[in-house]
């Protein structure tokens, strides 16, 4: 039986961001997104804003948004836990239409994951009432557009869980 190659190319993500006229990517790199970083760094229409801690991302995005730009946040699920008060105070409470691309560390379709970062993340998003999409392959990438549309329609943050490492 043929097996389908499960791969998400960073170019697919960048294309989604360009299609939606995203202006800034506010992010903290993680091991899964290095290929994406190289592509983003070479993309003239996107301004990268690297941060020292994930909680900064929602605040910087809030300033960019109020100032007329279209930012997106890119962090790992571990960073979502760290950024809790910023998500509460500067995304949910102020109705920021913010899409958070979240690296789904520990995600697996096969068996139980031992990684608590994976086991807790969806529960946390449910608790906050943040809807989310899962992307694993290039075919899923257009869910980023769905998330952006939903965030803007509902004036709420929406998460996109990136369930696989990026291919080169």
């Amino acid at each position: 039986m043929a097996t389908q190659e499960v791969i998400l190319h960073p170019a697919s993500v960048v294309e989604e961001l360009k299609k939606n006229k995203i202006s800034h990517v506010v992010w903290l790199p993680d091991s899964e997104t290095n290929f994406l970083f190289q592509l983003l760094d070479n993309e003239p229409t996107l301004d990268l804003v690297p941060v020292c801690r994930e909680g900064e991302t929602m605040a910087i995005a809030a300033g960019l948004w109020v100032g007329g730009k279209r930012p997106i946040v890119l962090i790992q699920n571990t960073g979502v836990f760290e950024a809790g008060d910023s998500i509460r105070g500067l995304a949910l409470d102020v109705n920021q239409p913010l899409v958070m691309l979240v690296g789904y560390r520990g995600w697996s379709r096969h068996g139980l994951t031992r990684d608590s970062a994976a086991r807790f993340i969806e529960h946390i998003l449910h608790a906050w009432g943040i809807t989310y999409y899962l992307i694993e392959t290039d075919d899923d990438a257009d869910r980023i557009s769905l998330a952006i549309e939903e965030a803007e329609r509902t004036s709420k943050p929406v998460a996109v869980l990136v369930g696989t490492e990026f291919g080169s």
Partner: protein
Amino acid sequence: MIDNSDAVKLLDSKRDNAIFVATMNANNVHFGLPTVTSNEKLDFPVSGAMSKASDVALGLALAQPDRKIMCLDGDGSLLMNLGAMVTISNKAPKNLVHILFNNKVYAVTGGQPIPGDEQVDWEDMAKSAGYAKVFSFDNLEDMTNGIDEALAAVGPVFIHLVVKPEIENTPVQFRTPAKRTVHTAIADLPETLGIKR
């Protein structure tokens, strides 16, 4: 030491069309920016996520590069988010002025000392983080004489103000509510800036 109210009054008198992103004592309804502001529509009070005013200001500075953004921050607040100083200097927005109101205490929770209140050197901290220019004032006369040079410098600029602690010890739900809030600012600041969504 400088009175909070004198500091915000002097800064407001120099604002032109700058946006003020203010938090903690600098935004206190009894002696902070709301009591002296000459252009409320350009005030962006940050509450609801302590320590993040400087990051909000960075976002605004990147979005509005032709307008000066002045962040009025607190020392306890900035200590919670020290990495923001490096995040700011890394992006190096020329239009950002980060002004630290250093009163050495958590004024809004009863005046407990902040960690390292007697040892932290904010000027050295800002220089090491990579701010383009760093200024420090511990009395109103020096601040009055030096503020024009500080605000004229190419950013990111860090201004350290040694201010008198003004202690508040009222639970949040019993405090005088601010007329202008983060919600008000988010609702009307884009229109004030001429931004069409």
